[in-house]
């Protein structure tokens, strides 16, 4: 069913299936009626508080979900923050997005409270997600509860769940794929959403909640399969936010699990294409979306119901990718004879890691150049992990020590895993840009 807003979604199921389980977290189960009542009560408190922009340090808990829905109903601008980021980065993001109220771990909130701003005047309905925000310069994508609900409808139109299903939400709510495909997808189908208990419970969440469906990034699917912690009731896995190797797919298939792929971006409120049956790499376009290919194969998306309003306070960046309502993804694709979309590569200077994180290379490399005092370097992937290609003479141990200091502020998955020292110059175009494909090829040949 299609919902206009979180308010609409909650009130609908509170009326139609009030006693059905909506959310589970640890040993607590909340029915749709209880969820609706709790959210509305909290929304009243938030309204009375007089704040206008709430920053949520997401921990994926039941209270976290309630706070998001309540803030939306109260008309606050919502900023979803990754609590694992370093404090300095979080402070910068809080200032950038005008947050005047924080929710989350008390100690961390206290630490960050000095960064609070004066709030906003026109934030009603807006929900800000960061584009794999790993640095102080991360862009905030302005979505709305309406666009997120439409995205959930798009997904459920292709992959419907029923009230008997339990969807396990293991991904961070601060990532749009986790929010839409881990939470809203289930709720908008009237299914029960089991909220994962964090990375500490990756090994036993499936056994604890016995889900029938789960949304994961490829790295997490690999972990679940390798550690054999998938429960027999699990029948559907939706994989998104990264490339999934065929070997992993085969391993999951051997365990009797149906795997679907989703393709989408934060800017389109998550998925615009999903594989439903047959070849999992061949994706059908979602009902509200139109996808065409540019002459060079770049994927162009029109998603009138799900498209972002723009990047927060970055009209220049918005104009660069959103032209006449068409979003230029920077991803390359092709259509097969049945009109299904296949992703073939990346046009942008972006690395996509198996956990779905994107590394924006010019920004990442620029920071490394500054820290290491050397410009002839580039970052590429080796065995799905970022490595530094350093051109020129250098003492490896000293370089590693310097690099270690720089990497301390980055999430583990985004840290440089290895250094390739080379005497050869980096492959560049006539205009000086790094030839990414050639560099990747050289690294592959070197392994």
């Amino acid at each position, binding site marked *: 069913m299609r919902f206009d807003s979180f308010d609409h979604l909650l009130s609908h199921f509170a009326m139609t299936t009030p006693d059905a389980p909506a959310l589970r977290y640890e040993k607590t189960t909340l029915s749709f009626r209880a969820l609706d009542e709790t959210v509305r009560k909290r929304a009243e408190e938030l309204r009375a508080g007089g704040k206008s922009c709430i920053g949520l340090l997401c921990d994926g808990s039941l209270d976290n979900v309630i706070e998001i829905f309540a803030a939306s109903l109260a008309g606050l601008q919502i900023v979803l923050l990754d*609590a*694992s980021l*370093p404090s300095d980065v979080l402070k910068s993001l809080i200032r950038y997005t005008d947050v005047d109220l924080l929710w989350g*771990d008390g100690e*961390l909130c206290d630490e960050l409270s000095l960064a609070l701003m004066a709030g906003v005047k026109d934030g009603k309905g807006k929900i800000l997600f960061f584009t794999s925000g790993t640095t102080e310069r991360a862009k905030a994508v302005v979505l709305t509860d309406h666009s997120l609900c439409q995205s959930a409808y798009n997904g459920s139109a292709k992959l419907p769940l029923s009230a008997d299903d339990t969807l396990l939400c293991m991904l961070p709510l601060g990532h749009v794929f986790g929010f839409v495909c881990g939470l809203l997808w289930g709720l908008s189908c009237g299914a029960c959403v089991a909220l994962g208990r*964090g*990375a*500490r419970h*990756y*090994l036993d969440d499936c056994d604890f909640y016995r889900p029938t469906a789960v949304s994961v990034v490829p*790295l*997490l699917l*690999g*972990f679940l399969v390798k*550690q054999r912690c998938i429960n027999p009731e699990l029948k559907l896995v939706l994989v998104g936010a990264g490339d999934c190797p065929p070997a992993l797919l085969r391993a999951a298939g051997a365990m009797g699990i149906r795997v679907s792929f989703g393709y989408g971006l934060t800017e389109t409120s998550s998925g615009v294409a999903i594989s439903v049956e047959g070849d999992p790499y061949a994706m059908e376009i979602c009902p509200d979306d139109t996808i065409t290919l540019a002459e060079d194969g770049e994927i162009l998306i029109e998603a009138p119901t799900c498209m972002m309003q723009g990047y927060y306070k970055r009209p220049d960046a918005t104009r660069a990718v959103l032209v006449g309502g068409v979003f230029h993804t920077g991803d390359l694709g092709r259509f097969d004879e049945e009109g299904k979309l296949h992703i073939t590569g990346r046009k942008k200077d972006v690395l996509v890691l198996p*956990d779905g994180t994107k590394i924006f290379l010019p920004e990442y490399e620029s920071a490394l150049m500054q820290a290491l005092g050397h410009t002839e370097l580039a970052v590429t992937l080796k065995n*799905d*992990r970022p490595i530094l290609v350093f051109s020129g003479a250098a003492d490896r141990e000293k370089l*590693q020590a310097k*690099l*270690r200091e720089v*990497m*301390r502020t980055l*999430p*583990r*998955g985004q*840290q*440089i*895993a*290895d250094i390739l020292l080379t005497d050869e110059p980096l492959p560049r175009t006539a205009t000086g840009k790094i030839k990414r494909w050639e560099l990747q090829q050289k690294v592959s040949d070197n392994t």
Partner: protein
Amino acid sequence: MTRQEVLEQTKKVIYDCFPDMADLDLQEDSVINTETAIDSMGFVLVICKLEALFDVRIPERQWQKLQTLGDVVDAICKRLK
């Protein structure tokens, strides 16, 4: 339990989780991310096993800050009951 015992048991957990690292002589200053084959999910696995083994709880927000084997051992020792 002494720090040395924690160190030895931590190394054993890592070798058990990643048998292909058996030839690697892990030192206190070995950087887990760059000098081993442990990726971010592998790190989650190691920490979960260590928390269960030593009956400690290291806050998830601290996990990012654990760079070397010595950092991990320190985090465990600090929380040993």
